[in-house]
């Protein structure tokens, strides 16, 4: 039997139908990713499941108990669904341990000692045991979200609902939260995750739901949805953004020709014109060698990832380079051929070509991003 059973769920706001007669069965241990454009109703759907939004029609049952039934013990059934929000929603005036223990002690009558033991176990799992006494304000967004996930788990829910759990985070912190969710998926937790992280959805989900036109427009395995979507709007959504990534693990082993060939094929496939391809190749080459020469001076082993994203609708190509090695901001350098100092001339030329570029160093990683 399905652990979560949704039948005929409908919801409209001021006459605007957002969800129309949605049916969904989720099996125990299944991880379901919900994707779709902004305003497609995916978050409303999630909020209707635990009655944070009251559906206009339809039924929702968790573990065989219908939360939408007349006279249902809503609070009790709702506890079967742990919710993780975009903005962590921790109690700011209570420390981490109190945040975790409050609901189970107050609502489930769990002895404080048992709750603390359970909380410490969860904190250890998410790598935050040392923060038990800390207040939310001293924690990073990523840490707060990991705590918020622990808080949801304290109630031992049958289903975890996550509403864009990484979208309020600084990009540098997305990884640590996704890592925790990945772990939960491996543990066989039943989860519904509304997300914009397509690569993550592909990797972690057993099933992907694409929401459009008031409901589940298309669903399937990650391979079915991402590699061969069948319906028009799914195709448009999936193909809106195109990705190309390239990993570099050693200076000696780096094959510039292979990378440039990859960029060329990527560009050709999506109709990116000749001059822009050369510009892309130029930026990639100059940045990579700038890091080879100045961030990885005395070592052959490197850890670099170059990623290109093409947003077709906006016709913008984003190049992102993540690199381990010594902190090094390539854009601080300046040199001119005419001044007989050509050490950084590649980057100097790059800066003349590109208006939007940024550099950050956090958690041991150099991050360069530029737009063409």
């Amino acid at each position, binding site marked *: 039997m399905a652990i979560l059973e949704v039948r005929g769920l409908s919801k409209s706001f001021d006459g605007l139908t957002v969800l129309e007669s949605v049916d969904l069965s989720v099996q125990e241990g299944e991880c379901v990713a919900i994707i779709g454009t902004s305003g497609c109703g995916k978050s409303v759907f999630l909020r209707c499941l635990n009655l944070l939004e009251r559906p206009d029609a339809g039924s929702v049952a968790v573990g065989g108990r219908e939360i939408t039934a007349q006279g249902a013990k809503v609070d009790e059934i709702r506890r079967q669904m742990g919710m993780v929000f975009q903005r962590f929603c921790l109690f700011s005036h209570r420390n981490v341990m109190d945040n975790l223990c409050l609901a189970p002690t107050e609502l489930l009558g769990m002895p404080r000692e048992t709750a603390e033991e359970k909380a410490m176990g969860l904190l250890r799992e998410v790598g935050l045991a040392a923060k038990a006494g800390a207040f939310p304000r001293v924690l990073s967004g990523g840490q707060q979200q990991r705590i918020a996930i622990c808080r949801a788990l304290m109630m031992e829910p049958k289903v975890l609902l996550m509403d864009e759990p990484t979208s309020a985070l600084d990009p540098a912190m997305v990884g640590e939260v996704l890592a925790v969710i990945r772990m939960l998926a491996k543990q066989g937790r039943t989860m519904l995750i509304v997300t914009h992280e397509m690569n993550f959805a592909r990797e972690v989900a057993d099933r992907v739901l694409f929401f459009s036109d008031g409901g589940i427009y298309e669903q399937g395995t990650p391979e079915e949805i991402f590699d061969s979507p069948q319906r028009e709007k799914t195709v448009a959504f999936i193909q809106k953004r195109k990705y190309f990534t390239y990993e570099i693990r050693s200076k000696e082993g780096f094959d510039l020709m292979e990378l440039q060939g990859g960029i060329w094929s990527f560009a050709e496939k999506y109709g990116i014109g000749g001059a822009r391809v050369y510009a892309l190749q130029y930026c990639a080459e100059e940045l990579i*060698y700038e890091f080879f020469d100045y961030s990885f001076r005395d070592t052959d082993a490197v850890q670099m990832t170059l990623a290109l994203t093409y947003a077709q609708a906006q016709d913008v190509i984003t190049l992102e380079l993540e690199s381990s090695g010594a902190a090094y901001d390539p854009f601080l350098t300046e040199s001119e051929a*005419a001044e007989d100092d*050509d050490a950084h001339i*590649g980057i100097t030329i790059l800066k003349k*070509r590109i208006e939007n570029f940024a550099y950050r160093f956090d958690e041991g990683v150099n991050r360069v991003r530029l737009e063409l």
Partner: protein
Amino acid sequence: MVDETVASEVIQENGWTIFALTGRLDRVTAPQIGEQAESALDSCAKLALDVKHLSYLSSAGIRILLRLAQKAKKEQKAFAVCGAEGFVKEVIEESNMNAIVTIYGERSELG
């Protein structure tokens, strides 16, 4: 497809030794081309690098042009670049190289 390599050709024309390049001048192909071009400069008084058929140029190629310009100056020889178009022309202009190297539009303009 990407032009996989770079090719060079040496031609004599109007008293100039023309070192004509085809393909891509980047960090991988630059060292070899640099050596060939320097030895061409060694055996002539006027060297012109014809980049008309060069499709791609990165800073590694710019550095070769600068080395050649410096060497020519030191040895009191003439050095010029000609034929730059499209992306290659843009990179040459953005490098400010025209301040130290004479740039001609076409090979036929070489004086």
